[in-house]
């Protein structure tokens, strides 16, 4: 328990260090950099034109599907890490069977998505 806490103490210290460094790095230019005061300095850059239309719109729903499969996947793949650490050379073959079934299920997920045409990029699908 003590070691784990200390481990995360290290990690936390580095997180704080990173944030602190970023803050300092952004603060220094406030002191030593000249500033521009212009009518359009702080407006949105759009190739030199005045922006029109909103930038916050509903973007292609296609990405949503990718995100969905990913979530299913990422969690499942994480399960494999504890399995992998205890997966020893030689030993019982049914360990492999369990692993194979698990991975094949994941493959099935991809095959399903593939068959459903998630990976097909066609303008007409939109």
């Amino acid at each position: 328990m003590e070691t784990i806490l200390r481990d995360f103490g290290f990690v936390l210290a580095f997180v704080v260090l990173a944030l602190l460094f970023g803050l300092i790095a952004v603060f220094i230019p406030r002191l030593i950099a000249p500033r521009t005061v212009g009518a359009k300095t702080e407006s949105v850059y759009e190739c030199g034109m005045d922006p029109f239309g909103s930038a916050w719109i509903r973007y292609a729903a296609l990405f949503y599907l990718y995100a969905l499969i990913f979530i299913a996947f990422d969690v499942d793949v994480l399960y494999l890490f504890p399995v992998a650490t205890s997966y020893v050379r030689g030993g019982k073959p049914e360990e492999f069977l369990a692993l194979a079934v698990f991975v094949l299920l994941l493959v099935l997920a991809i095959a399903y998505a593939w068959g459903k045409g998630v990976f097909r990029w066609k303008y007409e699908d939109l």
Partner: protein
Amino acid sequence: MEVRGPLIKFGVLEKLLNLARANSLWPMTFGLACCAIEMMATTAARFDPARFGAEVFRPSPRQCDFMIVSGTITKKIAPVVRTLYEQMAAPKWVIAYGNCAISGGPFVFEGQYNVIEGVDKVIPVDVYVPGCPPRPEALLEAIMKLEEKLTGYRRFPTPERRW
């Protein structure tokens, strides 16, 4: 539009920073007309502004140090040039590259309705490079003039001084 000085300004610090700025001038990816081709030729292998650290062409005006106005300023593009200049982060400089950017070049005639005679009518200019189009060496020289403006001395001895 104006550029205000920094909050803290020391002579030594400013000198050091100017030295750094002079050695890392990042131009903006902005070609207008004929001179833009010579600008591209300048960035290519033979002339290679990378030697002085001036090859990092940034497409976004927020991240670059100077703008090369390489071509004719028409009345339609003038507001764009001005907007881009205003959106650049200070300190910033402008090179008027070629006759068109200096005075309208060969496109000025009586009764013309579309050309602005010189980019300095729109934004302040630091270095003027004459020519139609100027050679790539001229652009390198302009960058060095800009460096000279910052540091106060020239990077290489001028030919006259050497010979």
